[in-house]
């Protein structure tokens, strides 16, 4: 988002072109598609949607021999709590996404491209529709793009409001008009049996935008940004108890969590201490404010970090036991009731479980019921262990990664703040003993 917030920068095509927009597409259509793929591979760019899977590798898995049409799908369902970067790109710089998509579509020789946009983003939908129209008028998409002989159009499809539509096979089902029930893998890997059982690539908005820059500067140059294995920039969406929440783009590893909180976001509210950070959207494992993180990085270097020293990139956050996920950094200070925070997260995941497979459908609402009961004043000391055990029974046994997404918060909250869960139970038990009715502390629903 190089220009997006510069004064005078607008989201129409003329402004975009004035700033050099679509130069990369013009360059791309003169290249061989496989060379573009090679550049993306060399850039090492990793998916910005959450899993952090190398995009070049994903493209490589594409089944090109099937003879079936290939589809490109942009995942703009952005629904991980704490994440709000894709919306900014769509609102402020839609042509960057369109250009990135057309380059990508050309690279994988897609027959048709889709933008699956979250239903709530109706403004973004309108902006994209207009932008696509503008681009079509200038022959930047549609038939015979820039005289290259390659044709591809973009269809914007609005979701109907479900978190699971962001899961790539769920998204594909939804795009086909079905319930967004994720598919079993194997056999339904999108790269082979995706949309309409055709080879399909699903990439995040930010990832597709990165493709534009990879072509602009070359894969090698792009790989210079950040550290090896953590290339390019990332947009961190900071929310919670900081003075200046917002989205901030930095090169990977260019900034530590501490710098992000204190220097960029203006620090915590006066008089508060940092209690916990969820660094990659609500499904990422929580980091405790006073924790020490020690271990070895992939390349063998040992590290010993406090929470503020953690470099913001894929591998460092993973080494610290969490993940960079979708870039949604949720800051909690010491005013946070950790049980309530988890109850909030559990409520979300229980509400969003698609209900297809057993562990998630039954287990996640169970966890919600337990945490709800705990905040309602009926906590038991054994609830922490029970919650943890339920989460263990879900993670890794479900059709899609939702099982992990819903279990990791519980597992990490219990692992790091078990004392608070037990304390809450004791407090409430004491209060009951005194004969006081258990006061309902909050009502989440």
């Amino acid at each position, binding site marked *: 988002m190089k220009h997006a917030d510069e004064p005078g920068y607008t989201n129409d095509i003329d402004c975009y072109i004035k700033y050099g927009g679509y130069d990369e597409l013009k360059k791309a259509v003169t290249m061989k598609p496989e060379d573009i793929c090679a550049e993306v591979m060399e850039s090492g760019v990793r998916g910005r949607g959450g899993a952090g899977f190398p995009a070049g590798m994903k493209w490589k898995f594409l089944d090109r021999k099937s003879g079936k049409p290939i589809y490109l799908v942009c995942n703009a369902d952005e629904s991980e709590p704490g994440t709000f970067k894709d919306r900014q790109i769509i609102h402020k710089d839609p042509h960057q996404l369109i250009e990135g998509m057309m380059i990508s579509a050309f690279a994988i020789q897609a027959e048709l491209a889709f933008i699956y946009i979250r239903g709530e983003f109706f403004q973004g939908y309108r902006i994209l529709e207009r932008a696509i129209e503008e681009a079509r008028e200038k022959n930047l998409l549609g038939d015979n793009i820039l005289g290259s002989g390659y044709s591809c159009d973009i269809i914007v499809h609005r979701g109907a409001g*479900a978190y699971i539509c962001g899961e790539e096979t769920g998204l594909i089902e939804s795009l086909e008009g079905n*319930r967004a029930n994720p598919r*079993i893998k*194997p*056999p339904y890997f999108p790269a082979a049996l995706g949309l309409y059982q055709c080879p399909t690539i699903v990439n995040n908005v930010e990832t597709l935008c990165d493709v534009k820059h990879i072509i602009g500067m070359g894969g090698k140059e792009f790989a210079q940004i950040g550290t090896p294995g953590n290339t390019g920039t990332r947009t961190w969406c900071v929310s919670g108890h900081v003075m200046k929440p917002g989205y901030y783009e930095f090169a990977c590893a260019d900034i530590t969590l501490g710098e992000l909180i204190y220097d960029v976001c203006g620090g915590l509210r006066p008089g508060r201490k940092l209690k916990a950070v969820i660094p990659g959207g609500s499904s990422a494992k929580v980091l405790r404010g006073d924790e020490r993180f020690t271990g070895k990085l992939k390349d063998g270097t040992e590290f010993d970090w406090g929470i503020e020293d953690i470099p913001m990139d894929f591998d460092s956050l993973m080494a610290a036991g969490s993940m960079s996920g979708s870039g949604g950094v949720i800051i909690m200070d010491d005013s946070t009731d950790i049980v309530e925070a988890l109850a909030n997260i559990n409520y979300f995941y*229980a*509400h*969003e*479980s*698609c*209900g*297809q*497979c*057993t*562990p998630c*459908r*039954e*287990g*996640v*609402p*169970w966890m919600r*019921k*337990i945490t709800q*009961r705990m905040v309602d004043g009926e906590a038991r000391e054994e609830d922490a262990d*029970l919650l943890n055990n339920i989460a*263990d*029974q*879900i993670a*890794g*046994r*479900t*059709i899609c990664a939702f099982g992990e997404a819903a279990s990791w918060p519980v597992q990490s909250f219990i692992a790091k703040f078990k004392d608070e869960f037990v304390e809450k139970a004791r407090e409430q038990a004491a209060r009951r003993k005194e004969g006081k009715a258990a006061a309902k502390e909050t009502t989440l629903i």
Partner: protein
Amino acid sequence: MSENATSDLITINIDGKDVEVPKGINVIEAVKMAGKGKEVPHYCYHPKLSIAGNCRMCLVEMGMPMRDRATGEAVLDENGSQKVGWMPKPTIGCATNAAPGMHIKTGSPMVKESRNGVTEFLLINHPLDCPICDQAGECRLQEFSAEHGRGYSRFIEEKNVKPKRTRLGPRVTLDDERCILCSRCVRFSKEVADDDVLGFVDRGTYSTLTCYPGKELENNYSLNTVDICPVGALTSTDFRFKMRVWFLKRTNSICTESSVGSNTEIWSREGKIYRVTPRRNDAVNDTWMTDSGRALYKEVESEDRLTHYTIGGVHKTADEVAAGAVELLQQGDVAIVGSAHSSVEEQFYYKSIADSSGAKVSLVSHYAEGDGLLQSEDRTPNLRGALMTGLIDQLPDADLGSLARDIDSGAIKTLLVVNEDVAALGIAPDLLAKIKVIYVGTQTNDTAKDADLVIPSLMVFEKDGSFINQSFRLQKFKSAVPGPAGIQPDVMVLEKIAASLSGEQPAAVNLDQLWQRIATKIDAVPEAQTWRGIPDEGLALEPGTLVDLSFVETKNLKYDPVAFKEAQAAPAGA
């Protein structure tokens, strides 16, 4: 066939033992086949439906032999055998196809823990109303809970409440609280019955099975959803709350609705039938049958059953009626109206009676529209039997016009009618009044009312016998319940008549002895064939020249007349 099977075998390792299984089958089937009594528990997987993978009960540990990524060479352990790279997470057996060298653990701690977890999850919102649940005793959830359940509940929250009796259609009632959302019924309706009316609404733990708005689950296969429901969610409105299943006796039978001959099981107790369900036969009906076929047992208790041997309306014994019949038949000028509802054994006797009395045999066709699945155009179970026993040598006509002319001209004096209402088939009452009529049948009708001799017959549920279906498959059925008091099996009475007619002493013949006689008359039947020796899955007979007749059946679930004919024309073993 057998050669093909062996060449497609691959070696996989189940719990440390190398076994051979056919290539491409999934882990559930592989373990069932080669696991020596082991089972991978499952709910949503059904061998005849697409894979859904949603119940997560069949999780197993899976590993493949390790290869070095760079060189592609096998990675060996210290003993020199190839290392196994185990997947970090358990994988579902239903969607994992056996591949050479695959290793499977079906009982490791991780697998057990996964199953126990799934079982616990399925039970937390389950009403646990087994004492009043129709599925109790044949419920997968109940069985697996005993095996993989905790025995106590850690769930102290409130259970979800859902509707307990939703009418999905005229024959199916849904108890939503028991539903485990395995989607078998949804997939069956879509994939087999081709009537995509079922689906889930709402999300997550509130997901609910329902019909498409304004539609009902009313196709003629709706009760199969009840059969495949692994729990007590889909119940048969007819069978609901009637009987505990463990009291019921199961008897193998054959559906008489059409020439498909679906394999069935009759569930009865103390002489009363409670339900009919399909029995798996991959060559005939897979695991399905029609709703209409299931309702046929109700005829057993119908008001118009014939319950007495009579001569001129007066009750007689079987022996007296048999003697009376012999007397009439011996006088000559006999015609027989046979039936494709009779068993092969009975048809064999009618053929014998026809031969010794010089009778001309007619059969009446019962054709209707087929549904392309398990209800064929020919609504009789045993037309092929009538042809193979030689009772008739050409396809039946729709009415009995030529027989009527023969009666009118006085050429026929005695008419033996089997199970047909000839009065409704072109033989006017005044014609019938001119001759003597012997009626053999299960129900009364206008013909039976005016018949001089009446021989009550047993229904398929009440006797042993066999039919030959549309693809010339000989299939046997067994007696599930006794017939009306005092009624002998048809073959006993027919033996008395047939033996007397050919001047022999009637013998107490059992079906095995009878089949030794039948085997000498029908070339396609192996010489030493006994009734008991007919396999439960049936015996495919060579149709010989009969294959060239223009049968009315069109393509249905397991029968394609064109392909069948071609297969018969091809040299054997090819």
